[in-house]
């Protein structure tokens, strides 16, 4: 509880002592947004850690070998991740549901175990040192990026693109019969998600002195964690995944007393949320419990979460 007391009574000290945590929340929120785009368009893709790895390694390698400025490095990582998104998306987007999830897991692990751990340039299993990392100074950049990303998500989901994605998620066949180019919009979602993941990967690499090719970082464990952000927060609204990322990332600090058993607590929390609110924390009926009767709200029909 100290955690929250400090957050409200002494935000400056809180900021100073938890800068790394805040930066990590920001990064995770951006990755969760990348997950959100694919889920919002009805695709269960777990490819994000693969694209993050592409973004991270590209940006760090450019920095080490060519000493190019950070913005250029991250931009290059983003472009490469986007290209990889096109290349991976072309074959896998014919798949649906859990098949797509498994195929993208195949991509993530084939990239990590087959390519990254075997190439001399990526440091094989040893990872890469990133001498110009800036863990504390990077936080402003991360939070600014998060705001931009959130603004984009908001505009995207309100616009034609978002409407098309929602239509595809609710009923692909009906969307097709309404003249929506389903495969094109799915591809756009997949590539956008890859771009965002590559961006988050580049940012994250800038915050760490070491690029670690471990399972926790760019493997299935990470993919599952990102899926958890999105589903726990609720994937029907762009705020959901960000809330999920915040909650899951701060859990170890919230339950500091149970430090050794933090994964037991996290697991129990996941089960409790998903059993009592399968639509996620931010989801249909989300505020119904605490919203006073006189509070104006539009009686919108919101789609069920994908999957």
């Amino acid at each position, binding site marked *: 509880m100290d955690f929250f007391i400090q957050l409200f009574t002494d935000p400056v000290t809180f900021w100073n002592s938890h800068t790394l945590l805040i930066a990590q929340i920001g990064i995770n929120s951006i990755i969760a947004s990348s997950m959100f785009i694919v889920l919002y368009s009805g695709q269960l893709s777990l490819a994000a850690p693969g694209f993050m790895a592409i973004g991270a390694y590209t940006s760090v390698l450019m920095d080490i070998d060519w000493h190019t400025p950070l913005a250029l490095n991250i931009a290059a990582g983003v472009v490469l991740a986007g290209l990889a998104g096109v290349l991976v998306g072309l074959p896998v987007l014919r798949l649906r549901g859990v098949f797509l999830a498994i195929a993208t897991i195949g991509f993530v692990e084939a990239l990590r175990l087959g390519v990254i751990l075997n190439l001399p340039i990526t440091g094989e299993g040893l990872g890469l040192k990133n001498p110009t990392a800036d863990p504390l100074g990077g936080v402003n950049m991360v939070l600014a990026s998060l705001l931009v990303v959130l603004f984009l998500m908001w505009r995207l989901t309100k616009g034609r693109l978002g409407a098309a994605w929602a239509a595809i998620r609710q009923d692909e066949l009906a969307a097709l019969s309404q003249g929506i180019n389903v495969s094109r919009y799915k591809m756009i979602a997949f590539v956008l998600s890859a771009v965002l993941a590559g961006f988050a990967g580049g940012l994250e690499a800038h915050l760490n002195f070491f690029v670690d090719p471990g399972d926790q970082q760019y493997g299935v464990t990470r993919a599952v964690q990102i899926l958890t952000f999105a589903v726990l927060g609720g994937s029907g609204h762009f705020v959901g995944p960000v809330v999920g990322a915040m909650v899951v990332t701060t859990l170890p600090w919230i339950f500091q007393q149970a430090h050794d058993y933090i994964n037991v607590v996290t697991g129990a929390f996941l089960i409790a949320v998903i059993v009592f609110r*399968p639509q996620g924390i931010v989801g249909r009926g989300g505020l119904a419990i605490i919203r006073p009767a006189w509070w104006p709200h539009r009686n919108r029909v919101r789609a069920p979460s994908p999957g």
Partner: protein
Amino acid sequence: MDQQILNAIFIGSIYALFAVGYTLVFGVLDILNLAHSAVFMLGAAVTYSLVVNHGQPFWIACILGVAASALMGLVIEHVCLRPLRRRRAPPIAALISTIGLALIIVAAIEQGQPGSFFAWLWVDGANSVAFPAGTFPNPIWHVGDMTLEASKVAIIPISIALMLVLGYVIRYTQVGRGLRAVAENPRAAQLMGIDVDRMISLTLVISSALGGLAGILFGVALGDISPYIGRDNVEVRGLAVIVLGGMGSIPGAVIGGYLLGMIEVFALVVLGSNARGGVAFAALFLMLVLRPQGLFGAQLRERI
């Protein structure tokens, strides 16, 4: 090379046994039970703990290890799946709740230190341990240039026998007909008087017992028991296996298991040890892209 082929067959048997349980749940429920790899680990850990920390005879410990896994299957059903079914949650919700349970199981074992809360279950923390020599008879034969260890060789007939029994039960008994009916259409099955919830509980019990047994066999044969054996060895490979054989198909999972064993050993021999993991996942990716219905197409696609 003969030795390598033998290795492929015995690791393939473990993959197959694990994946049969995976695919059984997917076939009946359309849900990926991501706690299955944690159950695999739990079976091995409980058996080891009973033998080494509680001084039980090996065979009793094996039976209790399988029983503990089966019990965990019931926990999965009652905690993670049934409440979601009641709320008609999308299948992705079950993915998350089973991940949650897997986290709990692994963390509980991981925190098992002497004197800690979970010490009765496991005392070796995150370390990897092996059964002490002499726990079970393990004669070694030499045939040609091959070395045959009884503990490894025994896996092959055990798994094949179990999978045949499972196949028989599902194909020819009343219970099996019930399971297949639920897999085909739960609502229609209910209208025909089948207790769907009981069938699903049974599915989870069978699946988890097989998963736990696969874990015990793995621990016995490879001498590697740690909280992470499920995550590191079978979690994603199990997915590869059921995809290779066709999701939800039991014969497919068996063939897929042996096939993955062969692919990995082949990659090991041809490309070296580093490429081993990558090749399995590349195979998984290519398989889904080129032939999403699995290797054997429609004839094995019939559910479970």
